[in-house]
């Protein structure tokens, strides 16, 4: 009566799916580049204003012609587009009007600060959102679930920067517990324990703000996903096996409920970077988001476009990360092992 293991190798769509994914990402980068290329040329006024800023107004006609030629603006649109793509590939994003330095250089300086701020926030928000969401689903319909749900929906309705402003008003100004401005102390030298403590203290409020602003979506998604998996047969089976409530909840229900949440967390990086724009602005935090705000205020177009491109690439990197790591969590997504035989 032995049935030998018949490993049926089902058709694997993974290579096709991979191709679609990659082409999707290339397409997104192309769209972002095209937006960057077209907007200054479609917008009203002389494109020189968008490249040189107010300086362009002081030029006479002859100087303008010369700069046009130097920048290749007198060539055909297609040639310009080609030049632009080539420049981007070699990390030549033009010069910032405000800082008078290459855009790529400024981006490299600012990026680590944003990563330093967003990284802990993602982890905190995901952990708290998942644990609370799982508990709320487990105690669904009870008073604890109802109050958590209400609280999270209200938190979701608050603008993130407003949460930041309130935290500053209370914890920085009134209580004086944490500094609310910048990322590094004004005085003192870099390095050393004291320096790192100061940097960490300046991270507390922005990280808290982003955590509070994003925890709601993680909570709501985990709760909904848990409610789905709690109704699954394998959860009942786990209970019928005589496992403890905690094992049923965490090892069976939550383990499966996490799959969509994980995807959401990695994909929400894009939204997070967007949130960072306003939050970094409130805290005058020298990251990429604040840089976007500065470039808007100064109408520093090359810088603005550079930041947009960088954030787009960051979002795509998050997508790739999600694609690559998801199969680690879900054996069904591992290629070459799918089969449906009964």
């Amino acid at each position, binding site marked *: 009566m032995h049935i030998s293991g018949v490993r049926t190798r089902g058709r694997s769509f993974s290579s096709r799916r991979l191709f679609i994914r990659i082409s999707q990402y290339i397409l997104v980068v192309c769209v972002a580049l095209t937006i*960057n290329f077209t907007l*200054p040329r479609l917008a009203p006024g002389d494109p020189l204003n968008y490249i040189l800023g107010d300086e362009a107004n002081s030029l006479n006609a002859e100087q303008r012609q010369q700069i046009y030629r130097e920048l290749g603006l007198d060539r055909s649109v297609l040639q310009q587009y080609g030049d632009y793509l080539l420049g981007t590939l070699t990390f030549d994003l033009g010069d910032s009007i405000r800082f008078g330095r290459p855009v790529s250089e400024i981006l490299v300086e600012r990026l680590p600060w944003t990563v330093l701020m967003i990284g802990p926030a993602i982890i905190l928000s995901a952990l708290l959102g998942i644990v609370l969401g799982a508990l709320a689903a487990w105690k669904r319909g009870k008073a604890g679930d*109802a109050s958590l749900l209400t609280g999270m929906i209200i938190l979701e309705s608050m603008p993130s920067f407003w949460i930041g402003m309130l935290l500053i008003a209370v914890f920085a100004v009134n209580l004086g517990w944490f500094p609310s401005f910048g990322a590094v102390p004004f005085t003192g030298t870099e390095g050393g324990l004291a320096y790192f403590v100061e940097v960490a203290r300046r991270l507390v409020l922005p990280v808290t703000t982003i955590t509070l602003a994003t925890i709601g979506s993680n909570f709501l998604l985990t709760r909904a996903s848990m409610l789905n998996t709690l109704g699954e047969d394998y959860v009942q089976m786990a209970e*019928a096996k*005589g496992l*403890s409530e905690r094992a049923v909840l965490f090892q069976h229900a939550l383990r499966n409920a996490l799959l969509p949440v994980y995807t959401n967390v990695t994909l929400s990086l894009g939204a997070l970077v967007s949130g960072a724009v*306003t939050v970094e602005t409130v805290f005058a935090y020298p990251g990429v988001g604040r840089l976007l705000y500065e470039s808007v205020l100064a109408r520093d177009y090359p810088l603005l476009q550079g930041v947009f491109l960088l954030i787009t690439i960051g979002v795509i990197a998050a997508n790739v990360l999600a694609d690559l790591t998801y199969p680690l969590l879900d054996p069904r997504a591992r290629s070459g*092992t799918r089969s449906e035989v*009964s």
Partner: protein
Amino acid sequence: MNTPIARYLGFTGFAILVFMLLLAILGPFIVPYDPNELIAPAFQPPSWSYLLGTNDIGQDIFSELIMSARVSLLVGVVSALIATLFGVIAGLVAGYFGGWAETILMRLVDVKLTLPFLPLMIVVAVFLGPGLITQILVIALVIWAPMARELRSQVLTARRRGFVEAAEAIGAGGRYILRRHLLPNVTPLIIPQFVRAANTGILMETSLSFLGLGDPTVKSWGMMLFYANSRSAFLTDAWLWWLLPPGICITLSVLSFSLLGYALEERVRPRLRTSWRFGASERSANKVRPLKREPQEQDPESPEPLLSVQQLSVEYVTANGAIRAVDSVSFSVRRGEVLGIVGESGSGKTTMAAALMQLLKPPGRLTGGRMLFAGNDLASLDAAELKRLRNNRIALIPQAAMNALNPVYTVQKQLVEAILAHQKIRRSEARIRANHLLQLVGITPDRARAYPHELSGGMRQRVVIAIALANNPSLVIADEPTTGLDVIVQAEILELLTDLQSRLELAMIFISHDLSVVLSVADRIAIMLEGKIVDQSSVNSGVFHPNHPYSQRLQAALPRLKSKHTIPFS
């Protein structure tokens, strides 16, 4: 047809929204001062003349706040309207016409959803120049995409419904179908989509204005916060009356749309309904009296049955009153005996199995009767006692065993877990035991590390049986263990089950809708109809003696190979 909590939330949302809209409409008539006029010294605290105090240049904040309602709500709602319009058109076109239109539109949606939305809005807004129209356009540009995707999938679902296919079959034109059949089906979904878009729209207006991309000539709540931030409102106590009110107004407006959206969505998708019971403990109704001792080992010679169910009743509490799924059911199972329970779907068989395992989930609850297992009432066991009982003494082979295995763990792990829950042995020993069990049900140990999706339906069923037997239970409840399998596999599984039952001297409750299957395995049979056991009888070599008219009809419906009236060969 909403649940009370949704109605309550929906009403709250509606009330807040009406209040905000009234503020927006009546604003100019009720403000005490012109919000742009410098009417008082800077940073006046709230007083009767200046309800919310004044800002750094001496403008009345209360007037500003009320006048801002207009712009904030207008931008949010108008951009949501535009986005809804585009989203609906794109979704309908993509979902209905398919082909290249769908490919292009959905590609566009994917690109849009991948691009970081706030930076995108900022870049476009900077080049278009700040202003209300710009704000509305960029917000609409960003939020139409998810709506298009959602509507497309709804259209695809609606298209597969019978009546649309029927209309197509009788040659109805595309536009006719779109107008008469698809739009009415999709419209109820558009409203919650719009509400959610308005919610996002208001938040985005706030962010854009806060970054200085609002119209400088008018005020909105986001603009107020922009000014407050750029002029460092925190440094004085003014933040209390300068920061809090606009933020609260934004939060309330967004919240009102969220709550409305929740209520509307629940109306459209009944599956989202949660039953809310405050304060009531789930299991309290089940508790008869706490019993601190282990279910005692029973003398095999004793005439007492292993399981004795007396007057068991289970009800499901619904909005329209309680429905009695199991109605005063009594039966007993002796050691080593197979009791077959036959009934059509909805007769309460599965609910009864769940009650025996104490796996009833609200809204189902035990309302009466006793279930004596080895002399102890199952309903009176506490959590720890239940944990020791399940799988160890009574094991369940659940209905739809195909889905009873957790997709993310190997079958070995799921077996080991069951073993370690009850036996104090090392993990390595448990693995060896797991492989033995797999062999027992006819699976070679080299498949032990397979995931459920790598196994066939029959093999998954065998694994579930192995899990049920992992701790040598004295009673196995098999709930439709062969349903969903093809006939040959069904026969194999039945053979396996009967073989194991007699070898391990298991008592078994075999539940099925299939009388012929039950007759082939059961020593005794009980017929269930509408929650009641209407007939019980012993089975002798595949034949039983029905008393109730229902079971007589059941038996008469059995296909027979040997008929009483044999047709003589000519």
